[in-house]
């Protein structure tokens, strides 16, 4: 199994490959879209192709990429996590409050990481052990966290110490730390999902939970782990986002962010119906969505029109996915 492909997409014999090529052509779609968007932006935007600009785009992508990776884990499982923005915002705010009260920045970062992870664990327990519907649980969690975040801060941003931000934005060999974190994380997780049995359990559970259960896969634990992981990724994104903004703000957790996350996963080739997708898919999707957002920003497209466009993008890609599924399970 090659490291780029997993789940249903594996090396195929010559005989199958013709049929498979027809069914799974969508697997190449994210790469095609990335190239097309990239080419279009570089033609129309001067200075786009300079190193410093590319790095700044990637830095901008970092937190969305991490959120999309977390979302991918849950989507591969056949679930969804709509609470990631709120969970991230609340983690960021707790960490910032701790530092404002004189707390150690390292511990502040740990709080930003663990509060979202704990909230993700609650999502996971609700879905796996109580059999609740992921959509409802995480939507409610989004309401709780964004409500709490707004209430606690009174809608005012909480500044964080500059040394915290500077440490997070250090450049190593000219590359900002968040980009390096995303790179290492992506490589590590790509390896984990395609090469370890935990990864295989994730795909098998997302493909058919009942079969997995009969075969002895600890499906409840897999579900629990995926939602907790999504929470943890919300925490990592919280640290990076807070450093870039030099402040924690409930604005980080607004509902529209969830749409960017899910759009990233869907455009990147993570199936919203479970069983398909990798970390690389999520990151590619995040880059595409960031580029599209930037272009719309530069073209002065109104905020509301960008919502319309992103919504259409999600539906289009989910439709392509659903259509290819229909063919494969004739």
């Amino acid at each position, binding site marked *: *199994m090659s490291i780029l492909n997993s789940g249903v997409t594996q090396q195929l014999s010559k*005989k199958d490959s013709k049929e498979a090529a027809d069914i799974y052509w969508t697997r190449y779609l994210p790469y095609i879209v990335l190239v097309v968007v990239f080419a279009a932006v570089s033609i129309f935007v001067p200075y786009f192709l300079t190193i410093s600009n590319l790095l700044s785009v990637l830095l901008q992508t970092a937190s969305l990429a991490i959120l999309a990776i977390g979302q991918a884990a849950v989507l591969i499982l056949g679930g969804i996590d709509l609470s990631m923005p709120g969970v991230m915002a609340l983690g960021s705010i707790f960490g910032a409050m701790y530092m404002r009260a004189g707390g150690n920045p390292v511990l502040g970062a740990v709080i930003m990481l663990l509060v979202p992870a704990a909230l993700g664990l609650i999502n996971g327990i609700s879905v796996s052990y109580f059999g609740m519907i992921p959509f409802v649980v995480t939507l409610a969690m989004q309401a709780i966290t964004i409500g709490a975040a707004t209430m606690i801060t009174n809608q005012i941003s909480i500044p964080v110490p500059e040394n915290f931000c500077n440490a997070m934005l250090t450049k190593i060999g000219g590359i900002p730390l968040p980009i390096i974190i995303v790179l290492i994380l992506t490589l590590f997780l790509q390896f984990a999902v395609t*090469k370890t049995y935990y990864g*295989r359990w994730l795909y098998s559970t997302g*493909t*058919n939970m*009942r079969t997995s259960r009969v*075969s002895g896969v600890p499906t409840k634990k897999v579900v629990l782990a995926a939602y907790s992981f999504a929470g943890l990724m919300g925490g990592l994104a919280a640290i990076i986002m807070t450093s870039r903004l030099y402040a924690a703000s409930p604005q980080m957790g607004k509902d529209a962010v969830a749409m960017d996350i899910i759009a990233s996963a869907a455009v990147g080739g993570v199936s919203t119906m479970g069983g398909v997708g990798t970390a690389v898919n999520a990151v590619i999707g995040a880059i595409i969505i960031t580029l599209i957002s930037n272009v719309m920003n530069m073209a002065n497209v109104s905020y509301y029109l960008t919502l319309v466009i992103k919504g259409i993008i999600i539906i289009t890609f989910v439709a392509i996915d659903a259509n290819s599924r229909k063919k494969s*399970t004739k």
Partner: protein
Amino acid sequence: MTIPYLKMDGIAKSFPGVQALKNVTFEASQGEILALVGANGAGKSTLMNVLGGNIEPNSGKIYINGKEVRISSPSDAAANGIAFVHQEMAMLPTMSIADTMYISSFPYKHGLIDYKTIYQRCRVVLKRLGCNFDPRERIRNISPGDQQMVEIGRALLHDPQIIIFDEPTSSLTSREKDHLFEVIRTLKQEGSVIIYISHFLDEVFSLCDRVMVLRNGETAGGGLVSEYTNRDIVKMMIGEKEIDTYYERSEHRAGEEIMRVKGIYRSGVINDISFSLRKGEVVGLWGQLGSGRTEVARALVGLDPIDGGTISIKMGDQMMPVKQSETKKYIGMITENRREEGLLLPMSVCNNMSLANLTNLTKKKPFSSVIDSKLENSETDKYVKRMDIKISSQAQRVETLSGGNQQKVIIGRWLQKNPPIYIMDEPTRGLDVGAKADIRRIISDLAEQGAGILVISSEIEEIMSVSDRYLVMKRGSIVAEFGSNASKEDLVATATGAASKKE
């Protein structure tokens, strides 16, 4: 003799690969209860579905009251006064009794559902059945027996002349059953034609006037119930000429006890199940559909909950009680529904076959969670060859394989893990003759290698060709146990209740 009220003449129906009905003729008169019996797959349901308009026959005619009628849809059947009380109650738990009864034919008044009329009619019909419920009560708040009454009430709404009962007692308590029988007798006295399909011969003897037996889609016999004994009917059901020539029975040598089940139960589903399984033996769990056989199998591996009882498994040289959630570690389970619970359809043969064994296919520390793909491929290859699974490559998606090869993939998954115990629920369902023989051979080989195996099958020849011992289930309990010398008749008679005393 007068002309029968209902006559089905020369009905034939074939499905791809099976001739379900071959020229069956069937008569029923008003004021009598006719029992329709036969083994699983004998054609009872197909015949009644022809009458109910759910299945169109290839040939044959239906006469009601001497006149030929065409029934090509359930509404044609209803128009001809035929009502069907189904085995699986098509209930809408959150809706009211009245809504459930009228769901397909709400009367309207001024564009709104006319509840006044509905409630009035419901009360009348339910009273006739001896029930005094409020028609506004929700279905989930009444007992299964009462739900059955609602189902019958629905059938009676349009004053049918012919009422078909398909296994109506399968989910009823004995008191509810008595009440149902009273209702059926009343309907008979009112002059209806009653057709009663049952797995249980004791019910046939206590309720019915005439019996008709189907076997392999043909009429095997019939007549007044009073002229037959239980054994006569069992013989008609299984046929006397059929001899197991092409199913070669294999004997296995049973060793020490490997699993002991004591008193497991789940309220209303299975009662006090106790048995033991030894190394190297194949135990056939035999019973009619709905007897609880599948539920026992699922309970043993923790797929269905249990309310009590213990499962012990041999570890080292001691029998150790094992928590229900842990038994999966020692038991290879093959469920009856291959596609839903057996396979990861869009995934590869290799990934399907390694699924249960992944934790043993890893690299050495510190990479003990990384799958060793060479080992995974070689293990898969071993069992693909051993079971002669026809694939183009290990990467072939399982959904593109034939049913027989898919089933072998599932069995191969467990062979790779090599548990001491196997449970196989309908392991050859839907497979062709060649694949069935292959799977029976695999079962025999496994037993020879010392595994303890529990097999469930609806085909008596099949279960008899592999089993060393039989447990017979009826209504959620084990009612009999036989050794390898059991006859077909013993098994069928105990599972249908013909051998037991009248209740």
